């Protein structure tokens, strides 16, 4: 199995910083921003993006996590998934600009589930999408607003995002298929 490093530690940090700037720019400042990560690694990324946005803007930006397990459309095709906690910042989502953060954007089904989950929690003014890696192969009309790295890939390849807080190291690698 061949593994190729696509992003190294510094690349990831740079990508996140750029995303933070782009979020502030598109939102014309930090007002009403809520950043929500999708478990597991999306939550770690969301916290880092929120910290960067707060540092750049000088205003604390609320961050939370959004579990989408219960909204997936592929539950009966996979072993039972254990849901992860959802935590929504105290201000709620009504009228907010929600930025969803995930590590890898692929078919788009996770994001569809996330949009359904958000709809059950509140009514944001807008929902944006940030992904560290966009590997293509979308199955739904979903596209990201903020991307760390576009990474054209074959469906047989697997993409691994490793983050310091979860994995003890930090990199994005692409590996040939086969388990």
């Amino acid at each position, binding site marked *: 199995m061949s593994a190729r490093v696509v992003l190294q530690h510094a690349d990831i940090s740079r990508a996140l910083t750029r995303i933070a700037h782009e979020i502030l720019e598109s939102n014309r400042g930090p007002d009403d921003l809520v950043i929500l990560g999708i478990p597991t690694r999306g939550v770690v990324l969301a916290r880092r993006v929120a910290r960067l946005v707060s540092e750049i803007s000088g205003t604390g930006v609320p961050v939370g996590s959004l579990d989408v397990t*219960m909204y997936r459309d592929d539950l009966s*095709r996979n072993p039972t*998934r254990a*849901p*992860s*906690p959802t935590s929504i910042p105290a201000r709620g989502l009504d009228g907010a600009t929600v930025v969803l953060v995930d590590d890898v954007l692929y078919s788009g089904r996770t994001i569809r589930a996330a949009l359904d989950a958000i709809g*059950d929690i509140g009514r944001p003014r807008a929902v944006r999408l940030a992904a560290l890696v966009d590997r293509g192969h979308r199955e739904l009309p979903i596209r990201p607003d903020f991307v760390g790295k576009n990474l054209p890939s074959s469906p047989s390849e697997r993409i691994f995002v490793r983050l310091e807080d979860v994995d003890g190291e930090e990199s994005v690698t692409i590996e040939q298929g086969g388990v």
Partner: protein
Amino acid sequence: MRHLLSTRDLSRDAAIHILDVAEDMADTQTREVRKLPTLRGKTVVNLFFEDSTRTRISFEAAAKRLSADVINFSAKGSSVSKGESLKDTAQTLEEMGADAVVIRHGASGAPHTLAASGWIDAGIVNAGDGTHEHPTQALLDAFTIRRCLHGSASRGRALDGVTVAIVGDILHSRVARSNVWLLSALGARTVFVGPPTLVPNHLEGWPAEVSFDLDATLATGPDVVMMLRIQSERMNDAFFPNPREYSRRWGLDDERLARLGPDTIVMHPGPMNRGLEISSRAADSPRSTVREQVANGVSARMAVLYLLLSGERED
């Protein structure tokens, strides 16, 4: 999880997992829209051979909040009361495409029989069978105890070191049976308290201690006092002289309530006989979790249905 028939099959990790999922379910119930799309397209049949409005509506709420279709099949006034067998009923439900059958039956073991029969492919949830078990009641009880002790830090935790006194008609109680296995799996200690006529003689190897003296047990400072309902049919069968004597020796009256430790909680699976096994003041006191138990019942049953019906079928 293929079926939920008994808590005796649950390992510590499996039990904690169910309780953790129940926490996730409880979280969703504070949202603006409490309905989740998770089990859309699944059919849950509530097959009730015994009347139990409380348990049925709890399962019904759980299934509906997960967007499952719910069919209520009450045996009273149906073909079942006209002599249709469990086998024929099961085969009917199979043809109707039931994905899960929540069964309440007066006969101990009926859910096992259904699960082992091959008459039906659906997942089976035991919602109380005879004097055998009532696993979801034990799950909601454990969930309630864990939340009382650990609050929002409950996830991932067991009940190590907790002492639970279960008081009353242990002999006929499916709640007591399901609780003792689950509490033991979670590391808690169980004391059965009741008149010797209503505590089983044969508890060899059970993770339970026995006491005939409620006051002595309360003096040891249990964390939880779980009062069981005294069924009216026990009153006339020489299990105890009369309700007054029962209440005096084994009821949680105001005086005993006042003697409980500051953190002791009072539970009751309902429906209560106020004034018999529990005084009104005890039932309504701040230590009483009776109402939380009802709310938690929906979360626990959502967790069970989710774990049974999502994911690939395990065989």
